[in-house]
């Protein structure tokens, strides 16, 4: 299994968005979500839509990739919007039945809510399609660093994250191997009731856990033999380099934020 396709999301490319510093991308994405929550009027929302479309265009990733992100959550989005539309009050009442009512204000709220969902999901999809899990892990490790002040074991957390990522394909291979071994002994994973199928996973999970513990132990010894000491500072081979394009992107983000604040005041 390809580690880069860990979440089935990464879309290899070399666009401007791909090359941006992953730390910047994460912070910008977080900031974008904050702005989405503060956008109430049409103008401020429109600004965010334009920003997102521009970023999508710059990422040169096929639109279907982004749509796939939204589609998975479509049920939740529609359900939430429906609740919002049926149970809000205010404005002209179009239809009423018991405590349910469709009102103009409710409809506006429902549409805004859906828009908010779309923006947040697509905004975060930009990161996952343009950034490899490895880069994300580096970015998380870098962004966690300030928490050292609170005596959080930041370096250990970063090491755990990177080892977890490293072993995903290995463990996946192991799952396939164990399932094949159990199939050879006559276990049928694809039929029977839900309960029966769940029971059939037990002879997969137990050897998997046993093997994982054995791996962990061997890995720990190997790491120690190579001089790893969790309590000592380490240098880092993989460095993130802040480029001019990152400063530029940051400037754009600041500019958009200022425009956003302006629009909010005007609205």
């Amino acid at each position, binding site marked *: 299994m390809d*580690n880069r396709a860990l979440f089935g999301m990464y879309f290899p490319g070399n666009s401007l968005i791909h090359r941006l510093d992953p730390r910047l991308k994460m912070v910008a994405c977080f900031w974008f979500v904050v702005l989405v929550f503060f956008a109430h009027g049409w103008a401020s929302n429109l600004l965010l839509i334009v920003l997102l479309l521009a970023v999508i265009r710059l990422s040169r990733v096929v639109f279907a990739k982004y749509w796939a992100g939204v589609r998975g959550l479509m049920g939740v989005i529609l359900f939430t919007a429906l609740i919002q539309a049926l149970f809000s009050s205010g404005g002209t009442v179009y239809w009423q039945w018991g405590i349910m009512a469709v009102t103009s204000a409710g409809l506006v709220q429902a549409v805004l809510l859906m828009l908010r969902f779309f923006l947040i999901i697509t905004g975060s999809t930009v990161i996952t399609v343009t950034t490899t899990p490895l880069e994300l892990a580096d970015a998380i490790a870098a962004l966690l660093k300030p928490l050292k002040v609170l005596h959080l074991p930041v370096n250990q957390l970063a090491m755990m994250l990177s*080892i977890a990522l490293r072993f995903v*394909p290995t463990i996946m291979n192991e799952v396939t191997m164990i399932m094949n071994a159990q199939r050879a002994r006559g276990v049928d994973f694809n039929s029977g009731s839900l309960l029966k199928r769940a029971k059939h996973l037990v002879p997969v999970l137990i050897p998997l856990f046993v093997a994982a513990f054995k791996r962990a132990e*061997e*890995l720990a010894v190997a790491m120690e*033999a190579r001089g790893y*000491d969790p309590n000592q500072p380490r240098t*880092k*081979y993989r460095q993130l380099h802040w480029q001019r394009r990152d400063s530029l992107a940051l400037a754009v983000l600041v500019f958009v934020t200022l425009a956003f604040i302006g629009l909010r005041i005007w609205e």
Partner: protein
Amino acid sequence: MISVEKLTFTYPHQEAALFEDLSLTIPDHQWVAIVGRNGSGKSTLARLIAGLLPTPAGTITVNGLPVDEDHLAALHQQLGFVFQNPDNQFVGATVADDVAFGLENRRVAPQKMPTIIERALAQVRMTPFKAARPEELSGGQKQRVALAGALALKPAVLILDEATSMLDPQGRGEVLSQLASLRQQGELTIISITHDPAEVALADQVIVLDQGQVRRQDSPERVLTDVALVEAVGLVQPFALRLKAALQAQGVAVPATITTEGELVQWLNQQLNTRG
């Protein structure tokens, strides 16, 4: 030089001592193979030398450094260790990251790392795979990366704990030829724990462990030709030696100096040519 004196070691929760008053020395710049049956304590001995187990009774010194809690960091500067399972010692996300792991632990400046990594990968001929992820590599390639990871730290002693036992014949050949060329450079002391007669034949010396004691420390030729000993410790004679014995039994006078497959092939060719 590695010296073990009056080593006594018992695993926690076990009654019988694995080693009692074990003493041996491993000279510098030699390739020493340690053989013995399963449970004879070969791996344990390697781990004790590397300080990866609780400090035992007796003294172990590596190039003058005593192996104990206080000297672990300095000790790990001296030693490189390659383990059996290729997957469970691959820490980095890519080949280069994995080689860098030991350098990071030793706080080597990041600017200096690329050159060191390049050199280490070139030594094991893995340069083209620098950016490869572990799941793209074969077992033999992963073991060569592990070797590069150890070599990048310029150890004085390299310990291989059945490093080729999980590999297919091709991977085993790759790793062994890598080791043979490292030995040529003559700066490393290599300790290889093994069941593989081909690996034993490559060594300068063999230590035969049996029931926690050194049963024999001798040249591979003499150990491997001692049929009784070979059988007692669960080794198989290498193909060349078995063929030689079979030829001798048929009355072909194969010179005693011939011990490797290459020499035997050459000698046989010579014989066939001169007769034909």
